[in-house]
């Protein structure tokens, strides 16, 4: 299932009556994103911001018809059940916001998504935005949107929620805009890694280049390098990888995100940069260099 939702995509919101979901709902709607139903067990019959709430996903679909995806605001320990329910109801695009989802649940979710031929963005996804398609899902850029985001041709894929917007801001300050921007989360087993999304962007006419924000830990940057080398990712990628200072601290410390941890020599930012450079990816040493590298790579 494609992660590149169409304009006018119909979505449901699971757990949308909760603290976080109910704050995000009006923001998504005001951007033009279509949230056609909400699901919270026991809250069926409620209407929130004009959106009908149902007890189960299948009930919601029976009433509002087929949907393009679900955005899940369930708390971390309920996330797996919410994902299962959506997949079993035939929904094949999910964006999962909860942070601190146990790794075992993430592994099960990833396996289930594969079996259902579905795509999951997250857990720990701050959200996704595509200004041209009027999509703003999750928490991303729900405040001060215009400060950081303008429509454009650059995709931003980030392990960090707040850096997604900081990179969009840097691009905007340099007269560049975003096609897609999303947080893929910094967990050990994300449903979508950089490469999963970059591969889809190969077929996206709006995106001319991408920026990836990586950090210490994991091997997702290495996979990007491999696919670029093989030519399977052909559009230009600019990478910005942080976390050098952590080498001064004890090992096996987790920095903010569950996957941001160095074990042995794996996951060192400098190694990631080296591997990416060798594959032909442009690597920014400083945040402020990103826009220039993007412009350079679009021209080439």
């Amino acid at each position, binding site marked *: 299932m494609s992660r590149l939702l169409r304009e006018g995509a119909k979505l449901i919101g699971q757990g949308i009556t909760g603290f976080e979901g109910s704050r995000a709902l009006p923001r998504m709607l005001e951007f033009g994103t279509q949230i056609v139903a909400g699901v919270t067990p026991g809250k069926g019959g409620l209407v929130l911001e004009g959106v009908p709430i149902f007890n189960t996903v299948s009930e919601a679909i029976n009433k509002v018809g087929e949907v393009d995806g679900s955005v899940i605001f369930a708390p971390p320990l309920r996330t797996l059940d919410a994902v299962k329910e959506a997949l079993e109801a035939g929904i094949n695009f999910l964006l999962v916001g909860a942070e601190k989802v146990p790794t*075992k649940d993430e592994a099960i979710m990833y396996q289930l998504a594969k079996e259902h031929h579905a795509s999951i963005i997250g857990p720990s996804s701050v959200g996704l935005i595509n200004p041209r398609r009027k999509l703003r899902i999750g928490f991303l850029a729900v405040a001060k949107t215009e400060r950081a985001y303008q429509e454009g041709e650059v995709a931003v894929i980030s392990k*960090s*929620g*707040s*850096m997604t917007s900081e990179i969009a801001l840097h691009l905007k300050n340099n007269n560049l805009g975003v096609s897609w921007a999303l947080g893929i989360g910094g967990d050990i087993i994300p449903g979508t890694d950089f490469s999963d999304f970059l591969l889809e962007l190969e077929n996206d006419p709006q995106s001319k280049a991408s920026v990836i924000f990586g950090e210490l830990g994991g091997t997702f940057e290495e996979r990007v390098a491999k696919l670029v080398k093989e030519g399977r990712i052909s559009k230009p990628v600019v990478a910005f990888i942080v976390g050098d200072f*952590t080498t001064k601290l004890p090992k096996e410390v987790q920095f*903010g*995100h569950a996957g941001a941890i160095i074990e042995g020599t794996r996951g060192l930012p400098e190694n990631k940069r080296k591997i990416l450079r060798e594959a032909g990816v442009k690597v920014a040493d400083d*945040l402020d260099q990103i826009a220039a590298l993007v412009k350079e790579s679009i021209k080439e």
Partner: protein
Amino acid sequence: MILYEFEGKQLLFHAGINIPNQQILETSDEEVIVRSPVVVKAQVLSGKRAAVGGIAIVEDSEKIQSEIADMLGQTINQEKVERVLVEEKIAYQKAYYLSISYDGEERAPVLSFSKEGGTGIEERRVEKFVINPMSPYDNLPSGIEGELLEKVLNLFFAEDCLLLEINPLVKTNDGRWVALDAKIKLDDMALSRHPDRTFPPRSVPGHTSTTTEIEAKKIDQEDYRGTAGSAYFDLDGDIAVLSSGGGVSLTAMDALIAAGGKPANFTEYSGNPPKEKVVKLTKIVLSKPNIHGLWVIGTVVANFTDIYETLSGLIEGLREAEKELDTKFKFPVVIRRGGPRDDEAYQMLKEVKDFDIYLLGPETSISQAAKVMQQKAKEYAISQGDLEDE
């Protein structure tokens, strides 16, 4: 959370996996009941303790007490030894290596098995088996008893482990499988599924927490709203840092160091913590001597964080810290932060006259803000006579 060997072995034992007869001791006057010959093992979280005197084989029961006394209180890989494990020495015919962990590349649990077990083997031939978390017994190695593997896998999933490593796993002369070591890492995210657990808090391998680090951790333990202080480390620089958001914090620290600044700490607060928590964290980062600047750094496009609340907490924290430390903070405070209610917040800060505050906005990137901070801190250090003008 990483478990000490003795804690890990208890989990193995209760999962039906054999471990040697053993006893845990915190002082050398306790009587040793385990029969000699024994292995005395320092309980530290870091690996490779054998090479630095953390493991001793004692054949003569007369010498056990003195060996224990020697080991207790020693420092091994920067960790103080507070407990030793005394175990019966097991004779075996063959040693194996077994571990289960999550593999980001496979995005699945992976079981690794090697016929070359034991320590000191850097390059062992390991076979990897990708495990389907929904049917974990489908793809298992041969050459090892299936029943044992099932027990280990059960334990891994039932206890929400991130890592379960048994090295060596030995086959004894009488054909029994025994775990001679255990390295278990539990998933903190799943903690609330295991309310019966009582493992005390601990530092990370190869590190003994400083008092400030312990104090900082308490902030989150006492109040679950947002995070503040869970990730805190002392560094030896002179710029106190309060940063927000995982990715921004890492970016900011790299940028500050690249600009020539020297951070006095690493910490992070996020998820809209209430004012009281920001106050506490502010006091902690300013409790160190010789601070030449405070850097408050976060995204200027926060999604839900109430910037007015959070920066009010900062000012309150500064004032309380001044009182408690009976001092006046004259160092520069450089702030770059934005999001909901930031107009009000910056308006409020402009009226604060008791600190030397510099306000930066969306036109200033994190890297540029780092340069401003470095420059201001340097000027202040020079003015104090702590640094010579070039």
